[in-house]
C-alpha cells in the first residue's frame, strides 16, 4: 500500500532554494509528482489483487463442504456444486478467469448468496456509507473540538477528564459497548424503557418519509457506538498538534495584537494544527467502508462489513476477495487524494 504522506516526507522540497524560476519547470514538477503518486497507487492495487486472490485460497476450509455441512448430500451433489462455483478448475485458470473478469469490472460470483459480488456490494454500499460516514463525521467533529480544547491547556482539568474519557472508550471493545447499549437502551429491561430498536436499518413496512425517520432512529445506537470508540484518535492528534503549535511565535504576535484567547486559538492555532489531522481523516475515510465490521455485526446493519464477516466463515472466496479489492482500493484512493490535497493545504510541501 502507499506510504502515508507526512510532513517529514517532503520530497526534497526544502533544499530546493535554487530552483529555477516558476513556469514550465514547476508545471513539470507537479505533473511528475502527480504521475508518481498515480503509479504508486496503480502498482499497489495490482499487488493487492494478486495477493488477495492467493491469500484467501490459503484460508482453511472448503467452501462446498462448509455450505453443505449437516445436509444429507451425496458426493455427486458436492461435485456439481464445485463445478458451479468453478472450483474444479486448476488454480491458474481460476486466477486468469478472475483477473480477466476484473478488467470488465466483474468481481465474480458469491457462493453463498449466489449473486454477482458487484451487485451485492452496490446493494450494501449505501447503508455502510450512511452509517460509517455519519459516524466518522461526528467522531471527527467531536474529536477535533475536544482535542483543540484539551491541547490548548494541556494538563488542565478539562484536558485530563477529556483525554481519560476518550482513551477509556478507545480501549473498550466495540462489540461489548454495542451490546451494552442494546441491553441498556433497547431491550426495555429494568428502569429504562426500550428506547431504540435493537438492530436493522429500517422498521418493517416503513415508506417514504417514515422510512427516513425510522432509519435515523435505527442509526442512533450504532453511530453512538462507533463515535465513542473512534473519536479518541482525532482528539489525541488534534491535542498533540495543538500543543506543538502553542509555543509558536505567531501566536505571541496574535496575542500582542490584543486578541482574545479564544480567538487566538480558533483563528490562528487551530488551522495550523489541523494539517496533520487531514492525513488521518483521509486515511480513515479510506477505511470507512471496511472499518465498521464489528458495529454492523452487533447491530445487524445490512452493510459491507457484515457481508465480509459472513463471507469469511465459509470461506466465500468470490465474495471476500471482491470485498478485499474494494476495501484496499478505497484506502489506496484516499491515500492518493491525501497526497494530492496536502500540498494544496500546506505550501511547505509543494513540489
Amino acid at each position, binding site marked *: 500500500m502507499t506510504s502515508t504522506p507526512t510532513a517529514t516526507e517532503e520530497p526534497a522540497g526544502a533544499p530546493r532554494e535554487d530552483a529555477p524560476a516558476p513556469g514550465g519547470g514547476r508545471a513539470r514538477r507537479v505533473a511528475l509528482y502527480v504521475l508518481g503518486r498515480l503509479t504508486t497507487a496503480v502498482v499497489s492495487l495490482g499487488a493487492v489483487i494478486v495477493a488477495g486472490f492467493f491469500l484467501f485460497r490459503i484460508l*482453511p*476450509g*472448503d467452501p462446498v*463442504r462448509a*455450505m453443505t*455441512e*449437516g445436509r*444429507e*448430500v*451425496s*458426493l*455427486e*451433489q458436492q461435485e*456439481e456444486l464445485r463445478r*458451479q462455483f468453478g472450483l474444479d478448475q486448476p488454480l491458474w485458470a481460476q486466477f486468469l478467469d478472475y483477473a480477466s473478469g476484473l478488467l470488465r469490472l466483474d468481481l465474480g460470483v458469491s457462493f*453463498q*448468496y*449466489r449473486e454477482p459480488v458487484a451487485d451485492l456490494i452496490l446493494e*450494501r454500499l449505501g447503508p455502510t456509507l450512511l452509517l460509517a460516514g455519519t459516524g466518522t463525521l461526528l467522531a471527527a467533529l467531536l474529536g477535533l473540538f475536544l482535542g483543540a*480544547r484539551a491541547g490548548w*491547556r494541556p494538563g488542565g*482539568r*478539562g484536558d485530563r477528564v477529556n483525554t481519560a474519557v476518550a482513551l477509556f472508550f478507545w480501549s473498550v471493545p466495540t462489540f461489548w459497548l454495542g451490546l451494552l447499549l*442494546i441491553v441498556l*437502551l*433497547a*431491550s*426495555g*429491561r429494568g428502569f*429504562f*424503557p*426500550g*428506547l431504540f*430498536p*435493537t*438492530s*436493522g*436499518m*429500517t*422498521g*418493517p*413496512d*416503513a415508506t417514504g*418519509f*417514515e422510512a427516513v*425517520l*425510522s432509519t*435515523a*432512529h435505527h442509526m442512533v445506537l450504532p453511530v453512538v457506538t462507533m463515535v465513542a470508540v473512534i473519536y479518541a484518535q482525532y482528539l489525541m492528534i488534534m491535542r498533540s498538534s495543538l500543543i506543538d503549535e502553542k509555543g509558536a511565535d505567531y501566536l505571541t504576535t496574535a496575542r500582542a495584537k490584543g486578541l*482574545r*484567547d*479564544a480567538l487566538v486559538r480558533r483563528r490562528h492555532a487551530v488551522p495550523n494544527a489541523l494539517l496533520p489531522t487531514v492525513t488521518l481523516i483521509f486515511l480513515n475515510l479510506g477505511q470507512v467502508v471496511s472499518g465498521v465490521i464489528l458495529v*454492523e455485526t*452487533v*447491530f*445487524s446493519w*445490512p452493510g459491507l462489513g457484515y457481508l465480509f*464477516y*459472513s463471507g469469511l466463515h465459509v*470461506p466465500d472466496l468470490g465474495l471476500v476477495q471482491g470485498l478485499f479489492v474494494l476495501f484496499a482500493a478505497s484506502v489506496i484512493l484516499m491515500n492518493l487524494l491525501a497526497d494530492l490535497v496536502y500540498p494544496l493545504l500546506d505550501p511547505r510541501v509543494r513540489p
Partner: protein
Amino acid sequence: MKSPYPPVGTLSRRSASAAGAMILVGSVSAVPAAADEGGTDTLTVAMSQQVDTFNPFIAQLAVTTNILHHVYDRLVTVDPETNEPAPALAESWEASDDGLTWTFDLRDDAYFTDGEQLTADDVAWTLTTIMENEDASVASGNYVSAFEEVTAEDDTTVVIDLERPQATMTALNIPIVPQHVWEPVLEEEGDAFADYDNEDFPVVGSGPFVLAEHDRGQSIRLEANPDHWRGEPGFDELVFRYYTEQDAAVEALRNGEVSLVYELTDAQATSLEDVDDVEVNFADGKRFQAFTINPGAETRDGEEFGDGHPALSDKTLRQAIAMALDNDEIVERGHNGQAVAAGGYIPPRYEDFHWEPEGDEATLDFDPDAANEMLDEAGYETGDDGVRTSPDGDRLELRMHVHSDRPDNVQTGQIMEERLRDIGIEVDNQTVDPGILSDALYDAEYDLIFTGWTVNPDPDYVFSIHTCDGLPTEPGTMQGDAYFCNEEYDELYDAQFEEHEDRDQRAEHVHRMQEILYDEAVVNVLSYPNIMEAYRTDQISDIQLEPADGGNIWGQDGYWAFWSAEPAGEDARSGAGIPTGVLVGTGVVVLLLVVGGTLLAIRRRATAGDRE
C-alpha cells in the same frame, strides 16, 4: 492558578441533560412489536443465516430450505404425534411386493397459489427434472439416485420405479414445484439455471405460506395462504428478521421486536427463563455430539494416507479411550446440564430407532480402572511422566481437534483432556476454526476429532456415511466422516435400506448397526444436546411442537409449528393508536433539539469562561 475551565458540576449536568434527552425520546418512541395498523397478525422470527437462493432445486442453507418447506408442499410429511410418515400431498402410498414400484395417490384439493391445481404431472416433472438435470440435482439429488422412472398415471396417481428397493421412499424431502411455472424458467435459463434465484414475488407455491418479499440482509416476509388444503394458518404473516448477533436477537425478544428466537445457548436460555411473557422451550435433541478416532485412514483401494497415530488402529486402545470418558460428566460440565448423556448413535427422541447399551452390552461404560487394566494387559507401558507407550514404541500423545465456535465442545474437549490423562494418554488439545477442523478430517491428519449430525426421522443418511462406500476414492474425497469400514455393518445397512415393509424389522437392523459402531469405538457418541428456543406468549398463544412431546419449533420436518401457531388475543398486546412513524419522528426531532441546545449551552459557557 485558577483553571479557566468550567467546574466539574457542568460535566455531570451535561450528561444528565443528555440522558434526559434519551429517556424523552424513548418514552415517545417505544414501539409495540406485534401490533400493526392494518390488524395483521405477524409472527416475527429472529434469524442469523443468510439466504443462498430461493430456488428449491439449488438451496442448501438451513434457513432457505426451512422457509421453502413452508412454500412448497411435499408428498409425505412427519406426524408430530408419532414421528412416523404422515400424508401430505399424497393421501396414501403403496409399494409393490418386490419394493421396486411405489404408487402415490395424491389429494385432489391441492392448488398452487395462482389457482392451478397441483396434479401428478407436477410431481412427475419435479422428480424427473432432479433426476435428469445435473444443475437441478444439487439440493435433492440424493433422494432420487435410485429412481428409474417417474410417471403420472392420471391426475392423482404417481408411480415411481426404482432400481433397487429403498425404505426411504416415505422420507423424500423434496419440494414439489408447479410445472407450468418452472418448465419455462428451466428453458429460458439453460446453463444458468443454478443462478436463478426464484425471487418473482409472490412466488407461486403450494404450501401454507407464500413467499412475498425479500429485503436482502434485513428481512423475509411470507404471507399466509388462505386456501391451503390443510386449512389457513393462524398468523397472517411470517416475518424472518436478520439478527447477525444472537445476543442482540435475545434482547429483541425481550422488548417484543421478535416473537421467536431459536438456537439459543444455555446461558441465553437460562437468562430468558424468568422474563415475563417469554416461554423457553427446552426440546429433546435431534443432534448427537460425538468424537471420532482415526482408525488409520484408507482409500477404498486400501491405500493408506494421512498421519493418524498408528496405535489407534488397535481396537483395545480405542475402547479404553471410550471407557475413560464419563458422558454424564460431559453433560453436566460440558453442556451445563442441557443435554442427555449418549448411549447409541440415534437420539432417544426417535424411540423406534434409538438404541443404548444395556446390561451385558454396556461394555464401554465409564470405568477408568478397567481401561487402565486393559491397556496394561495389551502392553501399553506407562513411562516416567505418566504417559503410556504403545507396544510398537509410540508415545500416546494424541491430537484432538475441537470446534472453537461451539462453547459446549470447547468445554467438553477440556474434560476429555483431563480424563484421558487418567489413563496415561496425553492430549494435544487443538481447539480450532471449523475450516481447519474440516481440512484435518479430510486429509486424515488427526487423531481425535469432534463431529455431530442432526438426525432426521428417517436415519438412513447418518448411517450411510459409515459404510465402506463412504471411504474416499482418493484422499480428500470422503463421503463419510470417520474412515469407518466394517463388512457386517455394510450388510446390515443394505438390509435396513431395503426393508421397506416392516418398520420393526428395519429398526432391529438399525439397532444392530449401532451396536457395531459402539463396539468398534471409532465413532464415539458423547451426548444429545437439547434444542433451546424461546418465544413470546403475548404474541403466540399456541404452537405445535414436533414431536408433540418434548419437540422443537424451529427446524421441524413438517411445517406444523408455523402453520398451527395462533396469535395471542388482542388484549394481550400493548397496542398504541399513534402510527409508529409519527412517534419515531417526534423522538428524533426532540433528540436533535435537545442535543443542539446542549451543545449551544456548552459553547456559550465555554466562551464565557474564556472571557474572564
